[in-house]
């Protein structure tokens, strides 16, 4: 024995999970959606993603190095993930400078100001996204129309999202059923619509969901209850008044429901720790989203809904403590 003998308390073995493995697992799960956005939006999707990821990682490095003055630790993949999610939440023709500002807000304010990884109460990518939506409303709502692979970026042809079309129609007193330029459910499922670059293809996002479940990175609770709540609530509204409220399938396939349910609301740091807490959290997001979409000023509301529920997570954690073994004993035989 030439080696040092280590002595430490048990356990002496570690499981398969590690922070980088989880972060890069989510990155892998986002690849189908990335492929779909490149397919629909072309070069723009690649540029936006590259700028967003690089600037998020750079800001994290700079803040660690020069402001917090600690050993920079960007290899855990969390900044890469924030960058990807921020890119997925903006239009594919967003000017580079705006993306960089979004990344600074996401990492600097959304994450680092609270103490870095694990400390932030709000989803950093959504903080960046909502900041941009409020600060640059024009650029953030000019949606390139999906086409084959295009090399255009800033000069892309733009149009409205299906949700915006519906909102506009309802505001003008038109009936939803008479709208002509709404994509079919099938087109919506594959992602043939205007929107934030990563949110369009439900199919690609569901593939990512399957991968996350397979790798046991997330559980099914948040996505299933979130999508289920949106479906049920918008279904009830639709049944009550089909002219004023779009059908539930339309609602779950458009906008950010899939991206939000699978990737944004399931963020470990900003979601509850127990399954019961997750269910309440997901139902809350679903209800708020449908309320904002149908009765609020914005056509889409999932970003706001997730941020609002993020704020409730500490309370949910307190209310939904697990029952200790042997605390409430039910001994039937």
């Amino acid at each position, binding site marked *: 024995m030439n080696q040092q003998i280590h002595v430490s308390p048990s356990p002496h073995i570690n499981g398969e999970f590690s922070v980088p493995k989880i972060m890069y697992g989510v990155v892998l799960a986002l690849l189908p959606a990335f492929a779909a956005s490149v397919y629909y939006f072309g070069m723009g999707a690649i540029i936006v993603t590259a700028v967003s990821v690089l600037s998020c990682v750079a800001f994290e490095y700079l803040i660690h190095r020069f402001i917090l003055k600690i050993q920079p630790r960007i290899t855990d993949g969390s900044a890469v993930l924030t960058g990807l999610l921020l890119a997925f939440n903006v239009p594919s023709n967003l000017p580079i400078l705006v993306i960089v500002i979004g990344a600074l807000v996401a990492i600097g304010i959304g994450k680092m100001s609270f103490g870095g990884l694990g400390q932030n109460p709000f989803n950093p990518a959504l903080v960046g996204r909502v900041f941009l939506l409020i600060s640059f409303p024009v650029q953030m709502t000019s949606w390139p129309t999906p086409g084959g692979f295009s090399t255009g970026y800033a000069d892309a042809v733009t149009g409205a999202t299906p949700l915006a079309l519906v909102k506009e129609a309802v505001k003008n007193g038109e009936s939803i059923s008479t709208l002509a330029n709404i994509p079919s459910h099938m087109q919506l499922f594959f992602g043939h619509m205007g929107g934030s670059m990563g949110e369009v293809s439900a199919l690609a996002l569901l593939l990512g969901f399957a991968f996350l479940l397979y790798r046991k990175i997330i559980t099914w609770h948040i996505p299933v209850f979130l999508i289920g709540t949106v479906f049920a609530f918008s279904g009830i509204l639709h049944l009550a008044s089909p002219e004023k409220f779009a059908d539930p399938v339309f609602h779950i396939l458009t906008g950010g429901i899939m991206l939000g349910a699978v990737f944004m609301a399931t963020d470990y740091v900003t979601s509850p720790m127990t399954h019961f807490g997750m269910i309440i959290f997901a139902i809350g997001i679903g209800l708020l989203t449908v309320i904002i979409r149908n009765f609020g000023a914005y056509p889409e509301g999932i970003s706001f809904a997730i941020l609002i529920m993020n704020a409730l997570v500490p309370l949910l954690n307190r209310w939904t*403590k697990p029952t200790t073994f042997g605390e409430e004993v039910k001994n039937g035989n």
Partner: protein
Amino acid sequence: MLKTFKRGGVHPAENKLSASSPIITAELPKVAAVPLGQHIGAPASPVVNKGDVVKVGQLLAQSSGFVSANIHSPFSGTIAKIEDTIDITGFSRPAIFINVEGDDWLETIDRTDILLAECNLSATEITSKVKEAGIVGLGGATFPSHIKLSVPPGKMANVLLINGVECEPYLTSDHRLMLEKGDEVIVGTQLLMKALSVSKAFIGIENNKPDAIQHLKALTKNYIGIEIVPLKVKYPQGGEKQLIKAVLNREVPSGALPIDVGVVVHNVGTAFAVYEAVQKNKPLIERIVTVTGKSVKTPSNFKVRIGTPATQLVEACGGVPEDTGKIVSGGPMMGKALKSLDIPVSKGVSGILLFNGKEAKRPIMEPCIRCGKCISVCPMGLEPYLLMTFSEKQMWESSEMSHTMDCMECGSCMYTCPANRPLLDYIRLSKSTVGQIIRTRKQ
């Protein structure tokens, strides 16, 4: 569907390297050290002096309290000294050193392999024989067994549960014992049933030991009231409360004991020791020890006399591997890390596990990402991340309110944590501090 406990649990790589190695009888050492404190409770007090000549099976030290156990000589020879030595706990504690000479047994001990299934002793006679033989829980907890057989007034046992789960990775001593001494284990189970006056016993075995399940199932056909229960492989199923939940679906209340739900749990190794003590008059002087590790040349199972140096067992497996970086007594999840192999095997040593340098190091701790995995794997329904925070901030009252005392230290949280946080270290700290506060409050 196989039975298992419902809440939490993990499934580490099983690594049962020595599962197919038959039990080998270890050679006798030249000098042995028999520790006086091999069980939970007061150390035994020696009844021999330096220079005395002893035979195998002779009483060396006497139980010195309610929770204590006798210790018998595993060797014949001369008492060299009674002196402190570093034992399995890592502390220097008194032990009786014996210069081993020959192998001369007490005549009262039946050393044949003939199975004696018949027993005409009464319940109290069996219990007193178990007490006399110094039998303690051989699963690793080393709680004196006769205490569990004397059911306190006002309580009733109606089921005996035999723990053949062996949920710790690497360890195979119980597995081999069930395969090679199945009849004896079952007769031992019957004796325990008689001592407790119960008519039903279950032997819980995890499904990764199908040969043991088949073997014992075939054997139990000839016995009334003993049932083999195959269990889904899940750690920590060998924990008493988890095993009771898995097999009987009874939940032991927080702070209570198995007897409060009418159950007594004993390990298969203990059942075997009870057989030998009651039917063969043989005190607890031997046990089965697994010596294993990925770099160990021939991972093996040994029948070892108590007091044999652990080094000798490792030598018999091809020597200490060059790359050894950690020595663990017991399994990888709950075992204790040792500073060196120069310790005597005691009643609670179920295995000696050697890790290489790479496996030995703890990975670097990262910030908690609040994934909640520690909560979902905790078999006791606790919030390990919160208990760690309370402990770090020395918030003992909050620790107590959050049931830190219910932690069984199975290590599932820390095993699972992706950020490699030392959850159990901090929970242990809060357990000992809160335990002290509770004791002071009671005074």
